[in-house]
């Protein structure tokens, strides 16, 4: 009898443990099943509203408290009321998308759509081709054609897999108040004019330039891309072509800026976001080569009265391209291959990138609108509009200079030294040759 009781005890203990473990696993699978069931129901249900009964799971790379997160939350609510769809909006943050989305999709977790940084080519067949949806909805006509071309350029088949929004342009963001104080009335469009502006600012007791380590590649990359084009810049960083004369020429241009005292004295130690927050946004330095997103990033420091200006990277006397070539980028939406109602997901994307909600996103996050019919750009970014409108050639990020992550750290270190005046152009070239050869 004792033995039987003992065995019964063993069985009960094992059973209890197994039940606990199974219960832990069960909750996840049941929620996924529920989500799929909802999606399936949506495709068959019919109601007054277009997507009654459809459930979408939307992972966003914003935080709920960011301006973009706040507007997207409101827009999703409006979408639910208007269409009858139920949207499970989850703010995952940049890291959440970067680290968690592909594993989630590979584990068959239901995620119908997501947003995040441009170029989602690494998602492979996990995201849907959107050409048919774009054509059926006549979507393309209202987006800047250059942006659509850029979005297609990431994919080998040249088709569209992501919808751009939250556009940004890169060039020199500057403080109009300081320009006025120095008596500068026109922004520079050539390198000589740029040097004159720097000198005028310096003569007025204003520090012309600053940057941060994270964005140090932008000015140098665009300068080099003006001379040789971004594809050749990529070749330099990927194949160690640092001994090209154009690299030395670019380094000499920045050596000159440093030697004339145009850079902030603390530029060498600016760990992002120190330069943009404590020098540019506080009016200690006048210009910073960066994207238009800096306006949103620093608005808590600058306040509403800061007068922002923008000009494209100056043209060079021996350059092969001009102001029509620039770095433009965006965030983008994509629909996953788990989505059973791509039409509903696309309708939500359309709502967020067109008309009222696109304008609101642009206004609240101080970004460029996706809808070309939204002509009322944030005042702080109005200067970027003519450059964007006339852009016919898009440079890769930092003119292609950040294309090799194995060389970027050495490049960043040597560029900061170059800007701080603690290394010459020749030393820069030597250091980069050494770094690429190991």
């Amino acid at each position, binding site marked *: 009898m004792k033995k039987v009781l*003992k*065995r019964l*005890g*063993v069985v009960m*203990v*094992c059973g209890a*443990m*197994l039940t606990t*473990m199974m219960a832990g696993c069960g909750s996840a699978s049941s929620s996924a099943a529920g989500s799929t069931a909802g999606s399936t129901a949506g495709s068959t249900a019919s109601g007054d509203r277009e997507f009654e009964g459809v459930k979408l799971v939307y992972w966003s790379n914003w935080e709920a408290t960011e301006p973009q997160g706040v507007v997207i939350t409101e827009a999703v609510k409006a979408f639910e009321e208007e269409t009858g769809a139920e949207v499970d909006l989850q703010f995952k943050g940049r890291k959440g998308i*970067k*680290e968690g989305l*592909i*594993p989630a999709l*590979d*584990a068959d977790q239901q995620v119908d759509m997501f947003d995040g940084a441009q*170029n989602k*080519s*690494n998602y492979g067949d996990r995201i849907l081709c959107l050409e048919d949806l774009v054509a059926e909805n006549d979507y393309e006509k209202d987006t800047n054609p250059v942006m659509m071309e850029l979005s297609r350029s*990431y994919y080998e088949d040249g088709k569209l897999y992501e919808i751009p929004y939250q556009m940004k342009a890169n060039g020199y963001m500057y403080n109009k108040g300081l320009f006025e104080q120095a008596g500068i009335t026109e922004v520079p469009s050539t390198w000589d004019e740029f040097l004159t502006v720097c000198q005028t600012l310096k003569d007025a007791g204003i520090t012309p330039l600053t940057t941060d*380590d*994270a964005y140090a*590649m932008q000015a140098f990359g665009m300068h080099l891309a003006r001379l040789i084009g971004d594809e050749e810049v990529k070749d330099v960083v990927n194949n160690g072509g640092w001994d090209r004369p154009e690299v030395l020429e670019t380094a000499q241009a920045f050596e000159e800026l440093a030697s004339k005292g145009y850079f902030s004295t*603390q530029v*060498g*130690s*600016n*760990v*992002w976001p*120190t330069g943009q927050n*404590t020098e540019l946004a506080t009016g200690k330095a006048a210009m910073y080569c960066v994207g238009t997103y800096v306006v949103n990033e620093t608005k808590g420091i600058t306040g509403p009265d800061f007068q922002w200006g923008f000009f494209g990277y100056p043209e060079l006397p021996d350059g092969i391209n001009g102001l029509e070539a620039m770095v433009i980028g965006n965030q983008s939406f994509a629909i996953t291959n788990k989505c059973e109602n791509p039409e509903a997901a696309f309708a939500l994307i359309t709502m967020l990138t067109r008309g009222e909600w696109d304008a609101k996103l642009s206004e609240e996050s101080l970004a460029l609108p996706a809808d070309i019919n939204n002509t009322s750009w944030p005042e702080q970014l109005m200067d970027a509009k003519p450059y964007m409108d006339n852009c016919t050639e898009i440079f*890769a*990020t*930092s003119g*292609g200079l*950040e*294309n*090799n*992550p*194995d*060389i*970027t*750290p*050495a490049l*960043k*270190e*040597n560029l*900061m*030294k170059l800007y*701080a005046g*603690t290394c010459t152009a020749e030393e820069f070239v030597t250091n980069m040759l050494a*770094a*690429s*050869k*190991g």
Partner: protein
Amino acid sequence: MKRNRSMIIAFAGPATIFFLATFIYPIFRTLVMSFFSIQEITDPISKWKFNGIGNYVSLLQTPLYVTSWINLFKIFVIGGCITLGVSLLLAVILKSGVHGKGFFQAAIYLPNVISAVAMATMWIQYVFNSSYGFLTTFFRALHLDFLANIQWLDADHKFWALLLSYCFGMIGHFMLIWVSGIERISPDFYEAASIDGAGKVSQFFRITLPLLRGIFRTNIIMWSISVSGFFIWSKLFSPISADTSTVVPMIYMYDKLFGAENTGDVVRDAGSAAAIGVMLCLFIVIVFTIVNKLIKNDDLEF
């Protein structure tokens, strides 16, 4: 006591299976993955391409990866000497009957209860900043301009700034372990030594240090585990993209696994990331073996 085998199996079985599934299996899978070309960590095995020791060779030929190990060794050796040395000194001082022992112990341990993110931000913005940071204003007030003008976060000083702030945060943790070790030593030894005329320094080298041998071994292993997982401090000192002076293998692994920022074309390489994981694991095993060989614990009884 009579052993009940079935009861042992019932209680130990699920835990053992759970341990094998969540600990041993990932280690084994990582080891296997390190010999394959794999893009995503979740790629099915059918997508894996056998690469032999290719991942290891290509990593060791990459200057940035080699730099990351050099930085790690510097943190391990120099940081280890600073952290273990200063924490031992503080532990001995605290155990020598100094007034306000409780307060100092809590104050020195305090950085450990503050988030590393907050600590690193404090160091970067309020200590090392070259226009309004503490070091700049302090040295300027003393008219030591050559010290005030040092740019602590530029390429030449960033590693040392990082090391100093990391060690500052770790000292309290190791100090507590030293304190617990010193508390195990009977006061009778010190009393007898004092009667025999031994001074405090002599007592430290002839009694405290030899009897702390086991704790010393534990601390070195704990330090090597902490250092091999060095990530967040490096990330905060070089946000967005890695930096030659602060890059460590974990940062390099993260960028390989999830893709570096701002590259345009995102390249992910889970196979190489697994190889880095294996090398980090080997690092700890090697340190553990060497320490166990060099420092014997079982020849003293007290």
